[in-house]
C-alpha cells in the first residue's frame, strides 16, 4: 500500500505532471479575475487562508517531511546539510503566504463592509519607538541569534572533497538559490537562461512600481482590489522561482535526470533525450527537402513564430480582452507589461514543447551562438 503510494508521489512529482497540476490549480487558488473568484469560493479554496486551512497546510508539509525521513532514498536528500535551508524556505514561504493572504482576506472583508482596514489607527494614536519598537527589535534579534546558534551547533557546515577541476560531481549543482536558473538551463541556452532572463527578472522587478499604476492597496494587506497584480507576482515568485528551486534540489539527480522523491539516485538510469530543432521538424520531416544552407532561411519558421509571439500577441490582446488595460495604462506601459509577461510565459511554453515534441530549439543558429 505504502509502496504504491510512493510510486504515485514519484509520478506526480515529475515536472511535466506537477507543473501542469500547479498551473491548473494556481488561478483557482489566487483568482486573477472575477470568474475565477466565483469558482475559488465555490470550491471552498478561500478556507485555505483561515486558521484551519493554515493548520492543514502545515500538517501536510510536516507529514510529507516525516514520511520522507522514514524512506531510505528521500531521507538521503532531505538530510543533506545544504538542503536544510530549502526546508526552512518551504515552511516559511507557506507560513508567510498564509499569513499575508489571511490578513488580505480579513482586510477585504473590512473594505467590503465599509470599515477601515485592520492596520488603520487614528492618526493621533501613536506609540513611542522607545520602548515599543526597540524592545520588539531586541527580542527578534535575540531569537534569531538563538536560532542561528542552535542551527550552527547542531549541523556542521558541509565540506566535500578538495576541488578537482577534472572531476565533475554527479550531479553538479549551483547554490540552492540559483537552482531555479539551473532548471531553466535545461530548456534554454546559457545566454538566455543565465544572462537575459535574470536581467529581465531584475528589470521586471524594478519596473513593478512604475507599471502598476493602481494607487489603491498601499500600506495594508489586500487581495480583492489588486488580484491581477498579486496573481502575476505570486506566479513568478512561487511557480517560476520557488517551485523550480524545490525541483532542482529534491528531484534532480545524477546526470541531471529527474528522480521522484522516493526513487533511488542511480547513476545508470537512462532517459532517452533525443532533441530535435524546429527547423528539422519543418524542413526534414514535414517538407522532406533537407536543411537549407543559409541559417536565416533555415530558421525562418522559428524567427517568424517568435516575432509573431512578441509582436502580434500584444496587438491581438489589445483588440480583445485587454483593451481596458491598454486604455488605462497607455501604450508604453501596456507594451512593457505584455512583453515581460510574454517573456515569463515563454519558460513554461518551452518546457511543454520539450516534453511533448522533444523540441530542442525554436531558433537554432549555433554558428553565432544564437539559440532560442
Amino acid at each position: 500500500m505504502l509502496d504504491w503510494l510512493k510510486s504515485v508521489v514519484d509520478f506526480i512529482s515529475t515536472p511535466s505532471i506537477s507543473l501542469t497540476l500547479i498551473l491548473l490549480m494556481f488561478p483557482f487558488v489566487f483568482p486573477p479575475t472575477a470568474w475565477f473568484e466565483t469558482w475559488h469560493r465555490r470550491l471552498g479554496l478561500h478556507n485555505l487562508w483561515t486558521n484551519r486551512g493554515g493548520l492543514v497546510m502545515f500538517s501536510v508539509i510536516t507529514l510529507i517531511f516525516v514520511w520522507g525521513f522514514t524512506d531510505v532514498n528521500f531521507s538521503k536528500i532531505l538530510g543533506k546539510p545544504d538542503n536544510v535551508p530549502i526546508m526552512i524556505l518551504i515552511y516559511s514561504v507557506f507560513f508567510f503566504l498564509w499569513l499575508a493572504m489571511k490578513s488580505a482576506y480579513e482586510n477585504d472583508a473590512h473594505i467590503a463592509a465599509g470599515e477601515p482596514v485592520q492596520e488603520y489607527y487614528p492618526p493621533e494614536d501613536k506609540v513611542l519607538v522607545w520602548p515599543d519598537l526597540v524592545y520588539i527589535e531586541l527580542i527578534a534579534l535575540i531569537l534569531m541569534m538563538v536560532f542561528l546558534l542552535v542551527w550552527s551547533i547542531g549541523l556542521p557546515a558541509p565540506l566535500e572533497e578538495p576541488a578537482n577541476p577534472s572531476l565533475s560531481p554527479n550531479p553538479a549543482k549551483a547554490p540552492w538559490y540559483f537552482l531555479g536558473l539551473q532548471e531553466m538551463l535545461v530548456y534554454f541556452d546559457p545566454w538566455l537562461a543565465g544572462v537575459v532572463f535574470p536581467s529581465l527578472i531584475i528589470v521586471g522587478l524594478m519596473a513593478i512600481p512604475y507599471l502598476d499604476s493602481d494607487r489603491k492597496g498601499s500600506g495594508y494587506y489586500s487581495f480583492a482590489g489588486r488580484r491581477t497584480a498579486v496573481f502575476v507576482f505570486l506566479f513568478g515568485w512561487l511557480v517560476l522561482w520557488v517551485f523550480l528551486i524545490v525541483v532542482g534540489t529534491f528531484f534532480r539527480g545524477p546526470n541531471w535526470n529527474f528522480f521522484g522523491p522516493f526513487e533511488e539516485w542511480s547513476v545508470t538510469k537512462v532517459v532517452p533525450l533525443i532533441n530535435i530543432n524546429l527547423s528539422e521538424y519543418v524542413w526534414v520531416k514535414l517538407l522532406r527537402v533537407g536543411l537549407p544552407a543559409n541559417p536565416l532561411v533555415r530558421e525562418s519558421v522559428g524567427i517568424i513564430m517568435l516575432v509573431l509571439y512578441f509582436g502580434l500577441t500584444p496587438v491581438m490582446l489589445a483588440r480583445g480582452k485587454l483593451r481596458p488595460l491598454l486604455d488605462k495604462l497607455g501604450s508604453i506601459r501596456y507594451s512593457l507589461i505584455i512583453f515581460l509577461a510574454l517573456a515569463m510565459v515563454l519558460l513554461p511554453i518551452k518546457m511543454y514543447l520539450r516534453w511533448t515534441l522533444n523540441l530542442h530549439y525554436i531558433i537554432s543558429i549555433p554558428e553565432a551562438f544564437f539559440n532560442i
Partner: protein
Amino acid sequence: MSEKPIPRAALNTPQDELSPAESVKRKGFISWLVVGWVAFASATGTFLAMIVRFLFPNVLFEPPQSFKIGFPDDFQIGVVDERFKALRGIWVIRDSEGIYVLSTVCTHLGCTPNWLRTEGKFKCPCHGSGFRKSGINFEGPAPRPLERYRIVLAENGQIIVDKSIKFQQEKGQWSHPEAFLKV
C-alpha cells in the same frame, strides 16, 4: 510615521530663478562650460577604461597549452583514452582512420562530462548533455559539439597537442588537416 515628503511646490520658489542679468552672464560662459564638461567626461571615461583594463593582466600563470602525449601506437583503435583527462583536460580517441583530441569542457556550461563506455557516449552530469564519441551533441541542452584541439606529429614521432588552437564542428573546422591526425 509623522514625516511627510516635502511638497514639490516648495522646491521651486521664485527666488530660485535667475534674474535676466545673471542669465546673460551665464550665456557668455557657456562655451567654457562645454569645454569643461567634455574634458571632465573624457577624463572620467579614460579612468573607467583604465579600471576595466586593469582587470586583464598581461601574463597568466596557467599550465602550458601545448604538450606531448606519446606515440600514435600508444592508443588503441576504438578506445576513448582517459589518461589525460585529469591533468590536461583532453580525451584522445583513435578510430580506424586516425586520432583526434576532444576537449573535456562541456559546451553547455563547462562541466566535465563522463565517458560512459557501455552506452558509448559522453554524458555531462550537470545538465544531462550527451555527446557521441565523435563529439557531436545529440541530447540535452548542449548547443554544439565538443571542441577538438590541434594535433600534429613532432619530429621524433610523438604526438603534440596544442590546446590554444581549437576546431569547432559547427564552423566546419573539423575538416582542417590539423584537427585530425591520420595514422
